[in-house]
């Protein structure tokens, strides 16, 4: 199957109009020596056959496990209306809205998305989205480097290791000096942070809740950061913002994060949604597309891509970033998800997550040999210490039908017996009880 509408007659007529004898003639500029040495691609298949092959493969994935794995990527319920809107092909088969008159639907939707991100984070401006939470954090860091003209970054080790690793990869050819701050009793060590904070610091990067699930109020840190003329950057989990103090309320200059939890399926790691919001004075340092409101020649409100002079198609090697797309369809999902929930719904979602995690903590603390870490409050994810290697426990729990959590030994030295457990609104009381019982049985 090839989705080509041309009949033999069409082709004949078109070749005639071109003045070519054959289609091959159109490829005459490709020297014979450069023709493919091979092109061993299997013969085409029908839609039915391909669908069958892929259905079979999808069933080879074990999605039936009861999921307690989070680590920055969460198993939330997605209302049907989100899927229905994202399936409108007037949205998903369009491209970047370069021509505003025939793209007002997309432009307005992105403007609404930007507003929602500002409302959630408590900051002034948002871009039209970035690839994912990790690349968004890198871009935020580079904004701080450009804005301050400095190159020292203080990075809390409570920031997701996946993101920290990405920052190191991206800066391997740039002269950026990193200082990692240890986590002590689950929280960012203020003492170490303040020791390293100086007038060479471009930014301090923190995460809330941090990778261990600990919730913090960083207002005190941000105050100090600003005294040295540096920027404070927060990586945040948007569902938690239905309950937790917003980055803007703590004084952060830039907030970024992974928007997957806002109505985007886990889908084995992507596509996801990097969001970014900042104080208005940083807007010209922002990377990526930005939509602005304006008026048409008759004074009617309309929306356009704006501040394009920051971007690669105009500034080329001097652009703020090489990014030329956004994750528009994922941003749309987030906008629909949040609009649907509204302020009550998002508060409720956060409350359910918090209550269920607290319930799980309480149940787990009844198990002998299991210690629930309580040095900091948590939102929907927390750390437990097991009497044996967490890797083994995870494997045994798989046999019981549970993806029981993320073993911290994979990311942190000396934490082989620690397990990170996430409890979203999807986990029922019954599932949590069975989870605790099964854990007791495998320990």
């Amino acid at each position, binding site marked *: 199957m090839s989705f080509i509408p041309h009949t033999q007659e069409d082709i004949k007529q078109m070749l005639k109009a071109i003045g070519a004898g054959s289609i091959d003639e159109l490829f005459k500029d490709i020297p014979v020596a450069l023709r493919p040495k091979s092109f061993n691609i299997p013969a085409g298949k029908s839609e039915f056959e391909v669908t069958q092959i892929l259905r079979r493969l999808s069933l080879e994935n074990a999605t039936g496990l009861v999921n307690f794995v989070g680590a920055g990527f969460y198993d939330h319920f997605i209302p049907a209306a989100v899927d229905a809107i994202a399936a409108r092909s007037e949205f998903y088969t369009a491209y970047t809205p370069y021509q505003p008159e025939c793209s007002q639907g997309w432009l307005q939707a992105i403007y609404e998305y930007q507003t929602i991100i500002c409302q959630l984070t408590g900051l002034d401006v948002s871009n039209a989205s970035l690839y994912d939470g990790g690349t968004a954090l890198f871009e935020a860091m580079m904004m701080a480097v450009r804005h301050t003209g400095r190159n020292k970054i203080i990075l809390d080790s409570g920031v997701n290791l996946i993101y920290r690793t990405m920052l190191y990869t991206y800066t391997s050819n740039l002269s950026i000096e990193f200082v990692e701050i240890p986590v002590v009793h689950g929280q960012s060590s203020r003492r170490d942070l303040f020791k390293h904070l100086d007038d060479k610091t471009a930014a301090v990067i923190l995460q809330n809740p941090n990778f261990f699930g600990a919730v913090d109020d960083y207002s005190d840190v941000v105050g100090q950061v600003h005294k040295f003329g540096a920027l404070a950057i927060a990586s945040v989990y948007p569902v938690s913002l239905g309950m937790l103090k917003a980055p803007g309320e703590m004084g952060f200059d830039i907030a970024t994060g992974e928007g997957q939890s806002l109505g985007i399926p886990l889908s084995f790691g992507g596509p996801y949604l990097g969001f970014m919001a900042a104080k208005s004075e940083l807007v*010209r340092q922002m990377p990526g597309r930005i939509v602005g409101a304006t008026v048409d020649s008759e004074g009617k409100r309309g929306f356009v891509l704006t501040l*394009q*002079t920051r971007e690669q198609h*105009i*500034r080329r090697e*001097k652009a703020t970033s090489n990014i030329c797309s956004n994750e528009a369809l994922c941003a749309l999902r987030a906008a629909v998800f949040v609009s649907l929930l509204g302020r009550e719904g998002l508060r409720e979602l956060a409350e359910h997550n918090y209550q269920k995690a607290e319930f799980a903590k309480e149940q787990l603390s009844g198990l002998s040999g299991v210690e629930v870490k309580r040095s900091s409050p948590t939102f929907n994810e927390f750390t437990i210490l097991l009497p044996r290697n967490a890797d083994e426990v995870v494997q045994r729990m798989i046999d019981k039908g549970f993806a029981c959590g993320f073993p911290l030994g994979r990311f942190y030295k000396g934490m082989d017996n620690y397990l990170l457990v996430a409890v979203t609104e999807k986990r029922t009381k019954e599932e949590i009880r069975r989870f605790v019982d099964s854990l007791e049985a495998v320990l």
Partner: protein
Amino acid sequence: MNIPKNLLYTKDHEWARIEAKTAYVGITDYAQESLGDITFVELPKKDEILEQTKRCATVESVKAASEVYAPLSGRVLSVNAELAAHPELINQLPYEKGYFLSMEFSNDSEKANLMDAASYQRYVEGLSK
């Protein structure tokens, strides 16, 4: 095309008005005309040291960003703060309220590298041919 007599000009379409040791700097009528509606200017900081022919500012229109080069070397005395809120002044009054900055220039002999109004006029006419 407005090319005031009392100013000095560069090939990149900047102008300088000399008052004793101070030079006022901006872009010419020709420059603002070819850039179109200016939406933003990035200016240097007070006391920044500028070097003749090196970048000192950037002007942006909707679809372009252009560098502005210092007509003379020296220290920035002040920048035109009004441009932040009203970049359109550059389009409206490029030689007056649309000026970019004032500077204390350090090397008198550099003036020889600039054109007077008549030479600039000929230069601009040559460009449009």
